[in-house]
């Protein structure tokens, strides 16, 4: 009986219009799972229950992405982990959960957008260990965040821009992250430009920062504290740094004195 209800709920979740009612449906579904004791997989859970449980949790994960609820998504991902690490023979008819790569890819993308590179690499290591490289290479949904991370690390932000724009995005859920990523790279490019260019014409700045109009450029410049004059942008940071460098010499004498006193003390202890 409970299974029947669960199938019904899953069916409802798959319809695209129920976004607002989704959280309630999901909590009902989770209660149902608890009734049949399938929320956490154990050795006696039947394959059928496993399928139901994974599809409920996966729907939950994908819907929370659409609702932009990152905490809920992380929770669903953690709950799905024990299911994903089960061996093949637990799943009858060789039907593994279909959305595994999607959910994993989304999680990787989430880690990237908050800048948690250590977590990103840890998860990637775990994936390589369990599925092997060949599978990961073929899997477009996982390769997408991997490519993005590579491009971000290198600094070729135009590649990132190209990936997040339009057709190259593997599916609708990934597009949710595109905005966050574009903001990230925009601030990255801005901080790089501050150090690299003495000044920039506004039209070039528009292209560099992937902004749409010159007005947007001026707004952005003001927000970051740059000076916009005569159609060019001047970056003020470097002078402040030059002053700081000079101060370094004075403060470093303090460090030198401390260090030398330390050496003297330690040397005294050497008999």
């Amino acid at each position, binding site marked *: 009986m409970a299974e029947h209800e669960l199938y019904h709920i899953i069916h409802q979740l798959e319809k695209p219009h129920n976004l607002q009612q989704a959280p309630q449906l999901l909590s009902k579904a989770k209660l149902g799972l608890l009734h049949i004791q399938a929320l956490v997989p154990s050795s006696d859970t039947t394959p059928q229950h496993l399928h139901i449980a994974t599809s409920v949790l996966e729907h939950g994960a994908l819907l929370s992405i659409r609702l932009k609820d990152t905490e809920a998504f992380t929770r669903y991902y953690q709950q799905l982990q024990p299911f994903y*690490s089960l*061996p093949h023979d637990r799943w009858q008819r060789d039907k593994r959960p279909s959305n595994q790569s999607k959910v994993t890819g989304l999680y990787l993308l989430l880690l990237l957008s908050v800048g948690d*590179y*250590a977590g990103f*690499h*840890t998860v*990637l*290591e*775990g994936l*390589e*260990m*369990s599925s092997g490289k060949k599978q990961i290479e073929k899997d477009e949904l996982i390769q997408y965040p991997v490519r993005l991370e*590579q491009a971000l*690390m*290198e*600094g*070729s*932000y*135009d*590649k990132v821009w190209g990936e997040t724009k339009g057709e190259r995005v593997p599916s609708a859920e990934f597009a949710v992250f595109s905005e966050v990523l574009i903001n990230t790279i925009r601030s*990255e*490019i801005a*901080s*790089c*430009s*501050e*150090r*690299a*260019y*003495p000044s*920039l*014409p506004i039209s*070039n700045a528009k292209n*560099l920062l992937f902004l749409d109009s010159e007005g947007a450029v001026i707004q952005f410049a003001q927000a970051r504290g740059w000076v916009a004059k005569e159609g060019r942008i001047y970056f003020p940071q470097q002078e402040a740094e030059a002053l700081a460098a000079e101060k*370094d010499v004075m403060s*470093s004498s303090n*460090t*030198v004195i401390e*260090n030398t006193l330390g*050496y003297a003390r*330690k040397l005294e202890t*050497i008999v």
Partner: protein
Amino acid sequence: MAEKMDIDTSNGESKEEEKTGGPVAPAEMSTEKIISTNFALINQAVDSFDPRFTLRALRSIATLRKREDFAQALGAGIRQAFPKESNNARRVLEEMLPESVRQQQNGSAETNGKKDEVEVVEIAEVWAYLGVLVQVYLLDTASHQAGATFSLNLVSKLRSFNRRTMDPLSSKAYLYLSLFHENLAPLPPSPQSPVLTLRPTLLAALRSAVIRNDSDTQAAVTVLLLRNYISTADITQADLLVAQTQFPASAANNQVCRYLYYLGRIRAIQLAYTEAHSNLEAATRKSPTTGAAVGFYQQATKMLIVVELLMGDIPERATFRLPVLEKALAPYFKLVQAVRVGDLGGFVKCVEGNEGRFRGDGTYTLILRLRQNVIKTGVRMLSLSYSRISLRDICTRLSVESEESAEYITAKAIRDGVIPDSSLDHEKGDLLTHSGRDVYGSTEPSEAFHERIGALLGMRDECVRAMRYPGNRNREAGIEAMKARERERELVGEVLEAEDEEDEEMGGGMDGL
């Protein structure tokens, strides 16, 4: 990867033999003689409560396992220690040995005059030692399933003994237990590997070791747990273990080496390269570089090289020329060359060509991260060589797809401090370098010196703390010192008395005036 590690640890325990270049005598003695000498050593250890005798007995494991008559000698040893055939302890050990060994009957079986109960109590360590030898035998004959079950029994029995003299033996038992489980199918890194079932056992062992202040077992089990977690890529769990436990400071050197190596690996995966570098450097420095334990040194050096590359430094060429390292490090040498020059094409070719070897060493994923290092080095080379270079040229040199990418990459490089004192000229599309940066004028040399001095002073402190004084000599020296001090005191007393007498005389003289 499990294989390589196998060589490491099984060679690791022969490090103990390497340490003091083992006594020459066992090489000439028969296998049976060695085992009986070890019994005497173990008894001595129990009597004098000194672990050094047990360690000496354990050192001979490496020579024993190479002998062809190991199994027979082992059977004879068991019969010698437990003359009564009905003894439970003896039966447990003998079950593991092949039939032929059990049947051999020596004429004079009743050599020991001890009673049964006394046997069990006094030479429990001997039983443990024989258990470890049986483990070694089973490992060498690759009977992993039998070995795994036997080891579990052995280990649970050992845990029930709360004897400090048992510590070195129980740490060895845990090591072999872990090795057996690693060889059972399905092999790690599969998530169904039996090593996962081993984790609760090891954790419980760690708890009891800490409570009993058993630093040998504590160190050994911590290292085994880390190895376990890393083999299935459970890096977060390994990190938590390191954060929650303390590695005992009085652990043996080879356990410290292993611990530092695994810790370095965890940190490298978590992108904490500086910490990883210091750990791995300490591991390579402390590890023996000759003899049977070379495998560990090679492995640690490989990791160290990769971490150095990830930090942006180029490892020294001299490391690759050491005779013990030359062959093992050959693919890494090519890798370093590609990174040094900034040659992206060569780098990709090298990685693809040696993929199998890198995977076996567990460095493959780390090496993939080197891609951006190659690019950064390339940019740095270009900025050093040219005062002004067009972005198009940079694009072709670095094998980057487009000029825009090249522009972004150089801007990022400037921001990250890879090429300081440079700027981009957007209209002309050039990279300009302003030279004239005098390194000696800044604080860099003094910082480098400070680090080195700190490291050396730390090493000196560690050496002083690690010095050990053998008891007898110290006592004698102490007695002599005491006698010398007493003599001095007497002398001082005499001199003072003489002064007083003089004073009195003087005073008397004055009075007389």
